[in-house]
């Protein structure tokens, strides 16, 4: 139990430049505290997230992967998040199918105005990841 309390999940967060990254900026400006587990990678659009990124992040040992972008209808590139929704749905289903805990992958819509929501999304994700413990299933073993 105590081991789990000490365990800090490592999250890679793909944030769309226009909404979620700006939303996380707003969380910063508003000084809303949230766990430091997620390292952001800013991408132009959720539509630019290749499923390979997600597989790769897990392969490299991510405990959780977050993809966050603009609400449907708000995409800076109009349709990017629609395309992303489909792709992410498929990869999520696939991961779940082979027995990866569904809580390891998350997608959210966070607009530039939703600083608090951004903080909440990260907080919730980290809370959900903690009980799962370190992600070993897809992680490349360092020594063999």
């Amino acid at each position: 139990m105590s081991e789990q309390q000490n365990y800090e999940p490592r999250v890679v967060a793909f944030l769309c430049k226009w909404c979620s990254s700006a939303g996380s900026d707003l969380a910063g400006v508003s000084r809303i505290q949230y766990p430091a587990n997620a390292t952001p990678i800013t991408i132009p659009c959720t539509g630019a997230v290749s499923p390979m990124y997600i597989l790769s992040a897990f392969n490299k040992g991510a405990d959780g992967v977050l993809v966050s972008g603009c609400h449907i209808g708000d995409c800076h590139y109009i349709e990017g998040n629609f395309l992303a929704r489909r792709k992410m749905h498929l990869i999520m289903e696939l991961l779940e199918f082979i027995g990866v805990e569904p809580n390891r992958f998350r997608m959210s819509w966070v607009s530039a105005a939703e600083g608090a929501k951004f903080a909440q999304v990260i907080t919730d994700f980290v809370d959900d990841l903690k009980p799962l413990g370190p992600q070993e299933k897809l992680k490349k073993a360092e020594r063999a």
Partner: protein
Amino acid sequence: MEKILDKKRIDDWIAALNDWEVHAPALEDGIWTYKPVSGAARLDHPNTRQSPKGFTFPQREVYFSFEQIKGEPPKLTQILPKETRHVVFGVRPCDGKGVPRMDKVFTDHVEDTYYTTRRKNVAYVGLACNKPPSATCFCLSVGGSPVSTDGLDVQLTDLGDRYFVKAVTETGKALMKAAGSLLTEPAAADQKQVKQVHTEAVAYPQRKINDPDGAPAKLKVSFNSPLWDEMARACIGCGICTFLCPTCHCFDINDEVHSKAPLQGQRVRTWDNCQFPDFTMHSSGHNPRENTGARLRQRVNHKFQYFHENFGMHQCTGCGRCVSECPVGIDIVAVVNKVTENVG
């Protein structure tokens, strides 16, 4: 040393080999695979899907690890295989034949430490084939036989309710000694039965390579035969035929990086094979074996010509795996026969 083992007592023998890690074929996911066993071993398999070559030449071998902090020289740490001793039960004679062939590759010219370390720690308890276990077997054509003991340390022959156990090497004798009283002296009838079983096994009809002895020379002159391209037309360039083969040994060496700053990683060898289209491709994009025809020719010639020229024996042991498992029916027996057919 020749003994008799009650079939039901094989588990006890395995249990007695407590200095060794024992492996035997097990049926899993519809195929026979070598699996570690502690007690029960049933040796009623036709042959395993994968050959036992992985015991000495695993699919992935770590050579060494490296570590480097920016501005400092790298540190290398050699990683040799663990000195665990393995006994592999139920090795068919064709796979036994593969062992000396692999030995040749890995010790000729210079010795491969990783191979030799593993090799000296593996013993093979073979199982003679009372009848060729598969329709694709052709060991007799390539200098083998269903009862060959080459490469084995012990040979078992199935005599119904008991095995005829014969030591082939000193290691084999040691393994048999470990069995103690489980092994009993064979009676004359046993000897007679073994002989008969062996004779029948050899007499059993098999697929044939028409002129195995003439093959090296005939293949040599057929290098530019148009048949290669024609016969390889359906080949998909997968690794099945070579990965399953008991004597295919090609490999790749790559650096696997675990961390970039500081640099940490391992240099590893992995199986590779001549049927992969990128196998011989140069950095420039030039590929000496450009199409499936050239690659099929390499595989066949390696088995039946080059190896023979270098070591005086065919590299193929007639196990038939590449024939039965090829998804598109490319058949080394048919290929050799066809290419050599009309050559003088």
